[in-house]
Structures are given as structure tokens and as C-alpha cells.
């Protein structure tokens, strides 16, 4: 299994950062960087990482199941992660999450039928002073009202449609 030149160069740098004889140290970021491109930690990914790091597939499964950002099935094109932890809760994060479920017609961990959106209720993302907050993939959005959420979804739909036309 080969990945894009960009991911391969990231993996190369990552391996270079491990002390001699300690390439297993690359495992957690490696799974995440590959997932960014492949969409999930698939059985093929497990096998490939096992080969590259000389770690058994069972050990990789053990690690992959621990970290909340590592997925076994692909998320939507835009993975929307809404924080409902304390500071966001105080500022309407739980209501925002419920609004998002209704707007997208999916529940927690759901993927929309067109594969464009997925939704996840997440723990604190470090945006407590700019609550309620969410992330679309890795991008932060702060002080999100239900109206701002609807506008964001519309923008994402449009940019996806524009990309398809190109």
C-alpha cells in the first residue's frame, strides 16, 4: 500500500524523529496521518503499518481502539465535531449539537446519505473562551450560533459542489 507523496514524506519525517531501534514510537501519529488520506484505519492500513513498523496487527488494533480520533469506518467528507463539555455546555453547546442533528438528519457518529457530512459530539477541544465551538475536520469554528451553523453547512455544500464541477 502506497500513499500520496505528501503523506509519504510526512511518514518519513516521523520515522526520522524516532530514536534508533524505536520506530514503534511513530505508531499513533502514523495511523492518524494515514487516516487523513484513506479515511479510516482499515484492515489494509493495519497490515501496511504492521509491515512498516514491525508491530503485530493485534498490537495496532489495541492502540487504534484507544484513541477517539482513530476511526474504523470513514466519516463524511466534512466531519463536524461539536463540543458539549462544560464551557461549551454553559454557552449552548448541547443545544447546538441537537440543532445539528436535526439540520443534518443524523445522530451522533452518523454520516449523511450523500456522504458529505458526519457528526460527532466531542469532549473539550480547547476553545473554552470562544464557546460554543466545533471543528470541521481540523478547522476550528468559534462562538457558533444555530444560525451560524446553518450558514456554515450551506458554505460547505457550495464548496463541495464547486469542487465537483471543476
Amino acid at each position: 500500500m502506497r500513499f500520496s507523496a505528501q503523506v509519504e514524506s510526512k511518514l518519513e519525517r516521523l520515522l526520522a524523529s524516532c530514536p534508533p531501534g524505536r520506530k514503534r514510537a511513530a505508531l499513533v501519529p502514523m495511523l492518524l496521518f494515514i487516516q487523513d488520506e484513506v479515511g479510516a484505519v482499515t484492515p489494509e492500513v493495519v497490515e501496511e503499518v504492521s509491515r512498516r513498523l514491525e508491530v503485530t496487527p493485534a498490537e495496532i488494533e489495541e492502540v487504534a481502539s484507544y484513541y477517539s480520533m482513530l476511526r474504523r469506518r470513514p466519516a463524511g467528507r466534512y466531519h463536524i465535531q461539536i463540543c458539549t463539555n462544560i464551557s461549551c455546555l454553559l454557552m449552548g453547546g448541547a443545544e447546538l449539537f441537537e440543532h445539528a442533528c436535526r439540520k443534518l438528519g443524523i445522530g451522533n457518529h452518523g454520516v449523511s446519505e450523500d456522504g458529505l457530512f458526519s457528526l460527532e459530539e466531542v469532549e473539550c477541544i480547547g476553545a473554552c473562551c470562544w464557546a460554543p465551538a466545533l471543528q470541521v475536520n481540523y478547522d476550528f469554528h468559534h462562538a457558533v450560533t444555530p444560525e451560524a451553523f446553518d450558514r456554515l453547512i450551506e458554505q460547505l455544500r457550495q464548496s463541495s459542489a464547486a469542487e465537483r464541477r471543476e
Partner: protein
Amino acid sequence: MLHPEPHPLEVAVLTRRFRLPNSASIQTYLAHDGYQAFRKALEMSPDGIIEEVKKSNLRGRGGAGFPTGLKWSFVPRQSPKPKYIVANADEGEPGTCKDRLLMQYDPHALIEGMLIAARAVGARAGYIYVRGEYRYLIEILDGAIEQARERGFLGRNILGSGMDFDLYTHSGAGSYECGEESALLESLEGKRGVPRLRPPFPATAGAFGCPTVLNNVETFCAVPPIVLRGGAAFAALGTPRNGGTRLFAISGHVRRPGVYELPMGFNLLRMINEVAGGVREGRKLKAVIPGGSSCPVLRAEECDLAMDFDSVARAGSMLGSGGVIVMDQTTCMVRVAARILRFYAQESCGFCVPCREGTAWLAKILARFHGGEGRAEDIGLIADIAHNILGRTFCPLGDAAAMPAAAFVEKFREEFEAHLGGKACPFEEVAAHV
């Protein structure tokens, strides 16, 4: 994320470059004292550097408040093994969002702080362990590391001194527990974030079993000003045994939430009323969590308090990570307690029984309570479970869950009682009418 101007009561030491144009670039950093402290450290003896950090009364900004100079002094002078410097950038304590700003606006300060630590203990490599969600910060840090390497501040024979030091970012992938130092080291080695039995502490057996200095991002960022202007000057900014300033993240029901740099020992009520603009329109202060979600809640009348590690501990809570969460009169404390415990149950690594079972039971009972199905005996049960977790877990996550749980029922018992007998949450009503 920054307010256009700092608040007049702020004391800008760590944040003083935040509002400069291109503050994250090495050019800006070099034009404003950048790497001067490291140059000075190269002229100092390793013990001299550690002495200066001890004199500063700098205490760990991640939450535990352990004296930084003392921690560094535990690293063995002579070691057949390599030594490492690790920055904990796994910012995840609910209510805390300060390290994000340090890395975004002043990444070179973190690099310089780690370089000085490397010089003090004789380390040749370091890692910045950044939570996976902070991908854009990893990109900023990678860029800053590259700039520092080009200018000869990282790599072989740094500035002709004979010192070698390489620095790398390392991404997490979603785990609160990895903010605990030994779990972080496990994750850095490519494993599940399950904590290690201590002793040995990381100073003697840390990353890859080697002597390691492991500090929070803000702690490292405080080191360059300490070395440059002297430990005594930094200590003088704070209170006895609590040196310097601190980045307080004030969130929740205030008019001007934000991250503010204030002297250690700054009064909590003034922080809320003057710096953060007071509780939002027409409402009264009800409660404050002073240092992130694991710190016991304070009632409004307990908030006339100096915010340093020792004063907050005397008030029965903790300064923790400096995440000040402000709640007004419309807040349902049962709901807040239920949400906080759901978090700890979710994030428990599951390795030790009191934490795995205890947090799950607490979360379940509190959710039931808020849903109107609480029983009178549950109030005592919550306190009982909390006290059976306290001090009986492998790592501090158990205590981090048990302490707030016990405090919520102890301090707001009347609100728990108001939820009894199948009644709807009384606060939904209040919120609708204010």
C-alpha cells in the same frame, strides 16, 4: 481569539509578543529578545540555570504546581542513557485553552524554553506532544522548528557551542488521559495511553526509559524570561512560593471571556468582575470552577480568593491548569456535575477498577438525577463512591473525577434535593425567565 488590546490589569511577560505583526515568525521573535536567554544560558553552568529556575518559584502550569527547578534537578547528571525534553501540549482539561495561544502566537518561546532545559540537563533530543485536534498548531510548530534549525538554534553544534539538540512535534490522536505525564510517555512510544506505576518518575525513567524533563507548554515558555531577567524578578511578580504570572482562561457566563495573563495571587472576584467584565447582563454569580473541570467548585461567597496554588488549596480547591469557569444563577449544578462526570467516565483509560467503575457509576447516577429519576439515597451514594475513588487509583484521573463530584453534592445539596420526586429540572424554568 485575542482581544484587540490587553486588559490594563494584565502583566504581559509570556504574552508580550502576542499582538506584534507576524508574532509567530523567527524575525519577530529575534527582534524582541528572541533566543537571547538561550545565548545567556550557554554562558551559564547547568547548575546555574537550574538555580535560577528554582529562584523564580516557577511551578508547573499543567495543573500539579510542582516546582520546576526542583523537577529538573532530579535528572541525574551522569547517565549512560540519552536524556530527553518533552513538552506536554496535550491541552485537554475542560476549561483550559491557554497553551493553544502560546503555540499559535509565540511558538519560538516554547522552543527556546526547551533548548534551555536541554542545556540544563544535557539532553540531545526533545518532543512536543500535541493533541491531535490541534493540527494547525503542529503545522505552526513544524514551521518554527524549521526556522530555528536554519538559523542554527537546533541541530548539531548549536551556535558553535558544541551542544547538539533536535526537536520534533508528535501528534496525539484523541485522549484526555494522555495529558497525564506517564500516559503521555506511553503514547509517545506508540502505545495505549495507560499510566505507568511511579516511582520511578520521568526524571530518571521517562521517554524510552531514559531520564526526561517533562513540562507543560506554559512552563517552558516562562523559562526564557526567567533566565534573561533573573529568577528573582520573575518570583517578585507573584506571591511567596508562587512565582510569576499565569495565563488564566476565563470562560462561561462572563461578558468578556478570554485568556488573560495576570500575576499569581490575583483576586478571583476581581478577575471575574474587572478583567472579564463581570457576569453577563442582569444575572448574579453562582459558582466558579477555579482551575479546570477536575477542581472542586467554589460557591460565589468563596470567591474572594487569591489565585495561587497555596491559597486555592487552602480554600479546598485547586488552581489546576488555570481554567476559570464562571457560572451564573441560571446554571443547574446537577446538570454541570452530570456532564463533568460523563466526561471522566468517557476518558477513563479503564486500567484500574476504582476509576473505571467509579466514574461510570457516578456518571450514571448523576444523569439519572438530572433526568428527574434520582432517589434521596443517591445523594449519599454519590459522596460515598467519590470517597472510595479518592486516593485509590493508579493515576490522578480518578481523583480528578471524584473531587468535583464530592464538591457538587456537598456544596449544592439543596439543588440535588430540588430534583427529587420526579420533578422537572427547576433551572430550565429559571433560564427561560431571565
